[in-house]
């Protein structure tokens, strides 16, 4: 169902904007979890009509894996590091939230513009796939650049990855689902490592401000 897929993608875009505008860490993480849950249904919504029974298993596996990793495991890990590192619950952006929201809006407009220009060898299965993917990547970068806390860096990284995940959906037919699962695993490991690192950094230095990581160099 293309319309269902578009609906999911719209939710993803709205959540991207919501994450940019929210000032609290746990709202950010919860919204990321919700986005992960929404994305878990995306492959299924896109492809279930054309999928053979073998591919069907793949679809279900990707969906289930995405759901478990992105909306349960990773948020759980992040929340644990927030708790253990005793992070203050504010986002602490380096540019004002109004401005980041405005920038995100410009990115959204730009993404739709790019999507209407870029030509793909095979047409994307749902019209919103390309813009939503662009929005994810750009907003992810925005978060990585403009936020100071390590936790929000992780959130930014996740959003970025979600954007790439959406891109990946165009190539579902070509790409074996094992690759997708592999990416998921990578992501999980990445977040795990970052969580541990955050814990250690905060234990060592009493803060997790990434702007001050440069003090670590010799």
């Amino acid at each position, binding site marked *: 169902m293309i319309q269902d897929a578009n609906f999911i993608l719209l939710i993803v875009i709205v959540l991207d904007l*919501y994450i940019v505008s929210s000032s609290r860490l746990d709202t950010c993480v919860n919204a990321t979890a919700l986005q992960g849950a929404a994305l878990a249904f995306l492959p299924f919504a896109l492809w279930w009509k054309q999928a053979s029974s073998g591919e069907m298993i793949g679809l279900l596996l990707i969906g289930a894996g995405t759901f478990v990793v992105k909306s349960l495991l990773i948020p759980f890990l992040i929340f644990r590091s927030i708790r253990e590192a005793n992070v203050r619950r504010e986002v602490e952006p380096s540019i004002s939230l109004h401005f980041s*929201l*405005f920038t995100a809006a410009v990115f959204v*407009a730009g993404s739709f513009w790019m999507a*209407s220009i870029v030509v793909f060898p095979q047409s994307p299965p749902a*019209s919103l796939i390309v813009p939503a993917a662009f929005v994810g990547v750009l907003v992810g970068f925005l978060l990585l650049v403009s936020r100071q806390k390590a936790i929000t860096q992780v959130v930014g990284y996740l959003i970025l990855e979600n954007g790439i995940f959406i891109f990946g959906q165009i190539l579902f037919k070509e790409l074996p689902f094992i690759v997708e699962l592999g990416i998921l695993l990578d992501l999980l490991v990445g977040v795990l490592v970052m969580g541990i690192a955050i814990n250690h950094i905060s234990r060592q230095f009493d803060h997790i401000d990434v702007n001050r990581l440069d003090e670590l160099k010799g």
Partner: protein
Amino acid sequence: MILEIIEQIAILLFVPPLFIGIINKMKAWAAGRKGAPLFQFYFDLWKLLKKGEVYSRTATWIFTAGPIISLASIFCAGFILPLALSSSPLGFKGDIILFAYLLAFGHFFILLSALDTGSSFEGMGASRGAAFSAFSEPAFFLSLAILCIHAKSVTFKDVFHALPWATWGFAHPVYLVAALALFAVLLAENSRIPVDDPNTHLELTMIHEVMVLDHGGPDLAFILYGSSLKFFLQAVLLVHLLLPLPSTNWYFGIFYLFIGVFGVGILVALVESAVARIRLSRVPQFLIGASILAVLGLILSFYKGAP
């Protein structure tokens, strides 16, 4: 025609306080209380209408004109919006613009009458009220523009019936985005949580209530009824948007209007019960967020191969 006008007046006169009653009742239930009677707001208005007035020595005629003019302009806007039928007595091509500006005119006079007493509290309320409505204005227009573009018209009558209601929702998520933005505007313009708390009675934290601190008696009744009317009108707008059900049958129309408004009331009550109030400095961001949501909706409307 005459019947239509009488029907419109009757709805405008008697339904809005009930709408407030529904919300308050729902909020009470959600909090596990029994709550005030459903018709409490009518009793309050009746009580106020029976009272005398006390005016500040500082105030001029603007203080007393504020409630009258703002109520009159909201009521006039009520004649423009189709309620139970698909048309309205004052509806015309381009009436959406006049509707929004009439509401703004009413607000302008409430703001001035707040400043008229020279009280610092009311000045504070007027300042916030003016700022927040300045931010909600573009959000309101942007979300209505989404509908207008689909209907290719700036008229309520056409906009409400631009889409058959069966294809709504998944097929046209743009409408959902517009509804979300309009809902945010509804909450902000009518001083509901998360922007303002209608129940708070501390002068420093209020927005709408603190503007009318010095009004009493019939003046306050006009203001309270006027604000419930404005709330009702914006709720009707949302109802017509979400349930674009063409109806020429009056009984059917009124039934569906009641169901819809009841639904919006429940939604507002749920939001009020579940969400905390945001900091005052974050309110503009809430409304800018609503505008940006509406911009997203507009981009979707213009996007080739849009859903």
